[in-house]
């Protein structure tokens, strides 16, 4: 992480929304964050802390009310095929086969069909879904769907992957399996990964850094450097130390958040 | 029985249209809410008026809006329009109530007892696809040309959508809720009144809305074919006198009345279904 220019840089970013009632809400206040090239950074926090807002700002789906979001030194103004977002609900096209879905991004780039097919197949191979290439999304399990969406992203060889609670809808075991898969892929391709989650274990398993966020208004509470070598054993004592640290901090944040959000109609 | 309704009109469309309130809200905030929707109708009326004035549209075919308006005001003042509307509406209310009650009762029986359903499946399958309007001639033969035949047509028209939607609602009661009632050892009666009927309520309302829409459509149809009063008759009579303006007044009042009826039922629905927002 001793790079010269950060891959992603947020400086004094602020985001305000007008709520349904018409009053203004601050989703993010005065946020600075730097993410290095090839880094995996996890954003965790209770609901309403603005973690999804951050990732949407970085991916260009939203614009900051104040401040600047830069990737590779250039201001982010719109979504870019070099920075692909992976959604919790997969965003697969049900009318396309697995292969067709993976091809989508390549077709959008107008790559020649033969080359696109090669790339798509290589990408499917990477996530281990070659045999499912002719299936439709509705025939796949949740974990497989998410792997298709990862393959679709990887096919266009993005330098950044944004992942918005990608495994939240999966059961605990599938989730761990996909975490391992993601690390393996990262090992091979080394994209920069920004990963939003509310699972502390997931954050510690994946992140080189874990950004803990707090709500009302959304802000960074603490950044934790997870100095553990990959592969990380979830049951190691070292792992537990980070876990405990994050957990306690989190609990505090959560307590504050609960007073504000859970008990409101 | 398959719970589809060939007569149902475009209800699914409406359900989908309602789902984008958010978008409307966004436009509202931009201030376009009041201006945009008025532009097109006003523009249309102005062009129409101008073309008529210049003689490009023959008034016998399509009279200018100003003429229609004058006729409309006249007919309101003389009470003629409202009288016809009242007669038609009254027919709708009578026919619809009969059809809806019958439909509701049959639907509950079918929904609760597979045996009743099986007994009725072929007969309903045979009778249901007959278009309502096709009943008019034979009903006139049987019941004469007065009220009874028209009310029966309307009743038949409203019977099917109510029946089908209520059965659909009862059938689609979420099994999960039924399981909850089972766990708490609830009686069949409690299951029906506390779980099945409330959960079918949105479908019941859909049935009522479609039913009343069809009733309103059927009354016009029946009156066009044979009547001596009512909006349908008014239009038919105007046609014989080649009064295009009166015909248009009739057509437009049919549209507005239909809209009002639908609005009234929707309002009632949101009141009663406040739990389902």
């Amino acid at each position, binding site marked *: 992480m001793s790079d010269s220019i950060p891959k992603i840089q947020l400086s004094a970013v602020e985001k305000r929304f007008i709520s349904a009632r018409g009053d203004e809400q601050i989703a993010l206040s005065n946020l600075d964050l730097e993410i290095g090239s090839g880094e995996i950074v996890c954003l965790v926090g*209770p*609901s309403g802390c603005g973690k999804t807002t951050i990732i949407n700002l970085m991916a260009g789906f939203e614009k900051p009310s104040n401040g600047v979001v830069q990737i590779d030194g250039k201001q982010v103004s719109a979504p870019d095929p070099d920075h692909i977002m992976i959604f919790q609900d997969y965003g697969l096209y049900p009318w396309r086969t697995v292969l067709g879905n993976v091809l989508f991004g390549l077709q959008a780039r107008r790559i020649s069909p033969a080359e696109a097919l090669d790339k798509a197949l290589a990408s499917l191979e990477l996530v281990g879904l070659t045999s499912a290439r002719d299936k439709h999304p509705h025939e796949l399990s949740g974990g497989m769907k998410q792997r298709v969406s990862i393959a679709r992203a990887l096919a266009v060889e993005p330098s950044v992957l944004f992942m918005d609670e990608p495994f*939240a809808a999966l*059961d*605990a*075991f*599938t989730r761990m399996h996909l975490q*391992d*898969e993601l*690390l*393996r892929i990262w*090992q091979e391709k080394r994209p920069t990964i920004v990963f939003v989650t*509310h*699972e*502390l*274990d997931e954050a510690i398993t994946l992140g080189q850094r874990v950004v803990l966020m707090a709500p009302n208004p959304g802000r960074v509470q603490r950044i934790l450097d997870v100095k553990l*070598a*990959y*592969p990380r054993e*979830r*049951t190691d*004592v070292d792992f*537990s*130390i980070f*876990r*405990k640290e994050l*957990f306690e901090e*989190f*609990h505090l944040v*959560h307590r504050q*958040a*609960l007073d504000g*959000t*859970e*008990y409101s*109609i | 029985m398959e719970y589809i309704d060939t007569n149902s009109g475009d209800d699914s469309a409406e359900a989908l249209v309602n789902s984008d309130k958010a978008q409307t809200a966004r436009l509202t905030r931009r201030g376009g809410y009041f201006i945009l929707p008025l532009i097109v109708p006003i523009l249309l009326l102005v062009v129409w008026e101008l073309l008529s004035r210049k003689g490009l549209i023959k008034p016998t075919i399509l009279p200018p809006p100003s003429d229609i308006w004058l006729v409309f005001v006249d007919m309101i003042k003389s009470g003629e329009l409202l009288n016809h509307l009242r007669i038609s509406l009254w027919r709708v209310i009578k026919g619809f109530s009969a059809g809806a009650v019958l439909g509701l009762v049959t639907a509950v029986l079918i929904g609760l007892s597979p045996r009743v359903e099986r007994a009725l499946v072929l007969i309903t399958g045979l009778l249901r696809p007959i278009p309502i309007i096709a009943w008019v001639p034979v009903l006139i033969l049987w019941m004469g040309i007065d009220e009874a035949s028209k009310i029966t047509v309307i009743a038949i028209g409203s019977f099917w959508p109510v029946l089908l939607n209520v059965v659909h609602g009862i059938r689609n009661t979420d099994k*999960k*809720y039924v*399981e*909850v009632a*089972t*766990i*708490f*050892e*609830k*009686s069949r009666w*409690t299951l029906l009144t*506390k*779980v099945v009927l*409330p*959960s079918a*309520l949105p479908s019941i309302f859909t049935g009522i809305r479609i039913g009343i829409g069809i009733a309103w459509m059927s009354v016009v149809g029946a009156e066009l074919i044979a009547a001596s009063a009512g909006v349908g008759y008014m239009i038919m009579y105007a046609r014989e006198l080649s009064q295009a303006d009166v015909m248009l007044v009739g057509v437009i009042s049919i549209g507005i009345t239909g809209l009002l009826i639908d609005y009234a039922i929707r309002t009632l629905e949101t009141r009663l279904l*406040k*739990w*389902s*927002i």
Partner: protein
Amino acid sequence: MSENNGQALSISRLSKQFTIDTGTVQALTDINLRVEPGEFISIVGASGCGKSTLLRIIVGLDSESSGEILLGDQPIRTPGVERGMVFQEARLLPWLTVSDNIAFGCRSETPSTERNRLVREHIELVGLVGFEKAYPHQLSGGMQQRVSIARALVNRPKVLLLDEPFGALDALTRINMQQEVLRIWEAEKTTMILVTHDIDEAIYLGDRVVVMSNRPGTIKKIVQVSLPRPRDRSDYDFVQIRKEIYAEFFEQTNKPFAYAI
């Protein structure tokens, strides 16, 4: 509050098959388990191991299984109010308010004054005073699940079955709800059987953790958790138990980490 009548739940030689288009699936095979009165049992397993089916059989929603389940000395065949159940989705009736939903759980013969008292008491128990008149859609997921727990407890069941009750909640609310359930369990002394795929949750709550294996669903191991409550999730012993249970799930998979940084 109320003492448990001291009835143990014992499951013996329980098996269950499902018939599907392509043949039969063995959902559960030879389950033997004795749950002591007032005990908190956690059952963990991957999805499809039949753990939910087991709960559904105990509560009486799935029948046609072989083997025997006794509550005290009464065999269980049909649903009964002495067994309460909380599902993953809160399953509140959306057309009833919070109070009415809880009242729905009351036995039909309960007189209305008694019913009101019970409802009030249980709204307090789950910490929802002030929300009596709210409709389910106005509540957050965690609050809905509280209502569902109150509804299940209102008959003072001897056994409360929890089927992945926090699976749909986010991690933070989940932790909060775990503490709530513990508090309620300590207050009510109800026998609890919790099904989950969250190993942490199982250890945090259970007196014993039953590990189930996949196809055919069967009990693989029962781990005793004799840690004092409240438990510390990063405590050495906790971590050891965690390790032990993890090993049960990941033993066959040869390490996917064949690389290092």
